[in-house]
C-alpha cells in the first residue's frame, strides 16, 4: 500500500451513513472529485458508521466525506467519530455536506467535523479543501513529486 505521505493523488471516501437515501449530492461530489483527478470510493446508501470507518482505514483515505440530508447529521458524526477512535483513526479529517442548519455548525465542529459544505457549495470548493488537507500532509511528509507512485 502506498502511504498517504508518499501518495500524490488524494484518496477520498464519500459515504452515506444511516438510512437517508438522498444520494444526488453525494454522487455529484464523488464524481466531481473523480473528475478533478482524485481517487474516490463511494459507499452507496445506508451504511453503518463502523463499516465506513473500517473502509476509511483499510483504504487509507485522506479525507472522509459524509452527506446528510434528513437532519441526522449530529448523530451520524457522533457515531462515525466513535468508530474512528476505536480504530485509532480519529486523525482522518471528516467533511460533512448536505442539509445542515448553520446553528449546528459549532456542535458539528466540536464533534470533529473538519469542514462543512452546506447546500449551494461548489465542487471546486471541496476540491480545494481536500487539496489543502493533502498538501498539508505532503509538506510534513515527502518528495514533492506530483506523479502518482505505483503500488
Amino acid at each position, binding site marked *: 500500500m502506498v502511504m498517504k505521505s508518499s501518495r500524490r493523488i488524494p484518496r477520498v471516501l464519500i459515504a452515506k451513513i*444511516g*438510512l*437517508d*437515501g*438522498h*444520494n*444526488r449530492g453525494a*454522487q*455529484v461530489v*464523488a*464524481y*466531481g472529485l*473523480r*473528475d478533478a483527478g482524485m*481517487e*474516490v*470510493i*463511494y*459507499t*452507496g*446508501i*445506508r*451504511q*453503518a458508521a463502523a463499516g465506513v470507518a473500517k*473502509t476509511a482505514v483499510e483504504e487509507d483515505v485522506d479525507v472522509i466525506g459524509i452527506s446528510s440530508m*434528513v*437532519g*441526522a447529521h*449530529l*448523530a*451520524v458524526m457522533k*457515531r462515525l467519530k466513535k468508530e474512528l477512535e476505536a480504530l485509532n483513526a480519529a486523525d482522518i479529517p471528516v467533511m460533512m455536506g448536505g*442539509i445542515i*442548519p448553520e*446553528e449546528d455548525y459549532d456542535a458539528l465542529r466540536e464533534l470533529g467535523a473538519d469542514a462543512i459544505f*452546506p*447546500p*449551494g457549495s*461548489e*465542487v*471546486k470548493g471541496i476540491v480545494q479543501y481536500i487539496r489543502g488537507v493533502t498538501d498539508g500532509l505532503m509538506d510534513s511528509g515527502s518528495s514533492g513529486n506530483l506523479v502518482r507512485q505505483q503500488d
Partner: protein
Amino acid sequence: MIPMTRVEWEQQLASDYNRRGRRKTDYYSDSKIGLADLYDEESLKSSGFDAQRDLGFPGTFPYTRGIYPSMYRSDFWIMGQYSGFGNPEATNERFKFLLSQGQTALALALDLPTQLGLESDQELADGEVGKAGVAINSLQDMEAIFAGIPLDKVRQVFTTANAIGPIMLALFLALGEKQGVDPSRFTIVLQNDILKEYVARGTYIFPPTPSLKFTADAVEYCTRHLPHFKPLVICGSHMRQGGASAVQEVAFTLANAQAYIDEAVGRGLDVDDFAPSLECQLSVPMNLFEEVAKYRAFRRMWARLLKDRYGAKNPESMKCFIRVYTTGYTMTAQQPLNNIVRVAIEALAAILGGAQSLSANAMDEVLSIPTREAAQVALMTQHILANETGIADVVDPLGGSYYIESMTNAIEASALELMQQIADKGGAQKAIEAGFYQEIIRRNAGEYQKEIEKGERVIVGLNRFVDDKHKMKIESFKADEGVQERIIQKLRALKAGRDKEKVRGCLCALEQDARLGKNTVAALIDCARAYATIGEMCQVLGNVWGTYKEGAAWL
C-alpha cells in the same frame, strides 16, 4: 398592406440580432431540446401535429388538454401539503392545524426507520426516529395520529409508504375498524412504488422481484375489495429530483408503469378494473413551458399506452390523475426567501399543466423540516394562485399555443425513444437492475452542477446576484430531540402489554402466506389488528424474501 411572410420576418430577426446582439448562441430547454426563435403554425405542422388526433377536447382521449371537461372550473386541484414529523401526537396537532386552514387532504410523511421496516429502538434507526416524518411502529401510533380526525372527515390520506406499502394499507384498514368508519367512506392513497426506490429514493427493503410482487399485492387487494382506494402512485418526481430531465422523468415513469401493469395483468386482473385507480406523481422544476408541455405529453402518452398496448376500453383507465410536488433542488440556501417565488412559479406551471393535486414546498426545506410559518406560506401560495390570478378560470389556457404544442410533441417523441431503449434492455426492472436509469440520472446531475459552477446556468443568489453582506436569516425548525426516547418507551410498553400469542400466530400466518406466494394483505391486516409492529412484519417477510443492499465501489 401585404402581410409579412415568414422569410421576411426572419430577415428582420437577423438584423435585430445584428443590431442588439443575442444573449446566447443557442437556446435549449432543460431537457436539451433545441428551441427555435419563434413557434408558429409552420413549426407546429412540421412537428407532426394533428389537432384532432393529438389534442381533442379536455376530458376526452387522448386527454392532452386535461382529464376533466371542466377542469378547475368545477373545483380547484387538491392542495395536499406534505407533512408529519416527530411523534404521532405532534403530527396529530399539525394535521388539525392544516385542516383548520382549509387543506383538503392529508399527506402523511413517515420517518425513515418506519419506511424501512425498522423499529424505533433498533440501532440503525438511531438519530432518524421522527426526523423525516412521523415514527409509526404499530396501530397504536396510527390511533394517536388520527385522534379526533375520523378518516371520513378527510377527503383522502396520502402516505409515502413504498417498501411497506401493503403494510400501511393494512394499518389504515385496521384504524378504520377502530374508529368505526367503514372503508367505503375514506380513500387511502399509497405511494407503493418500489421500482423508483432502487433508482432515486433508496427506501427499498427486499430485492426487486419480491418487492414488485408485494406492490402488486396491494393493487390486487384493492382492486378486488376497495376499488375506490389508490393502491399505487407511480412516481417520476424522485428520479427527477435525483437528476433526471423532464423527458427522462416521463420515460422512466411510464416504463415503470408498464412493469406494474404487466404484473397486475399477469395475476389475471382486467386492466380496466385496476388502471382507473392508478395515479402518477411528477415533479415541477423551474423551466416553466417545458414543464407545462411535460404534463400534457405525459397524459397523452399514458392514454395511448393504456389503450393501444393494454387494450383498455374504459376511458377511466386512460385518464392519468397527476400529483405534483414542487422541487427541492431548485431551492437555494442562499437568500432563502427567494424560494417562495420559485415555489410559486413551479406551482403555476403545474396548474397550467393540468395537475390534479399539488404539494408546494416550504421555502426552508432546503435548510430543515419546514417551520409552521413556512408551511403556511406554501399553502397560501396555492390559495393565491387559485383565488387571485384567474388561471383556474379557463380550461387548458395554454392549449393551442404554437410553442406549447410543439414542445409537447418533442417531449413525447424523445420520451418514446428512451422507452424503446428501456424495452430493449428487457423492461424497467431489468434496466434498473443493470443501473441504466441510475447512470443517466447521475450524469445529468453532474452536468447540472458543472453548468452552475461554470456560470452557464444562472441560479439567483447562488452564482449571480450574490449577497454575502446581508445574510437573510430565517428561523429553522428545531426537532424535539427527546422524541426518540419517548417513542421507544411507548414501543416497549406496547410490546409488554399486547397479546403475545396472538401476535406470534398472526406473524406465522403472514410468513406462511409469503412462502406460498399468496397475496399477503389479508394476513397483514390480522397482524395490524393484533398490534404487531411494522418491524416485525418486515422481519418475517425478509426471512422469506431476503433483503437488498448497495455496496461500496471505486469510481
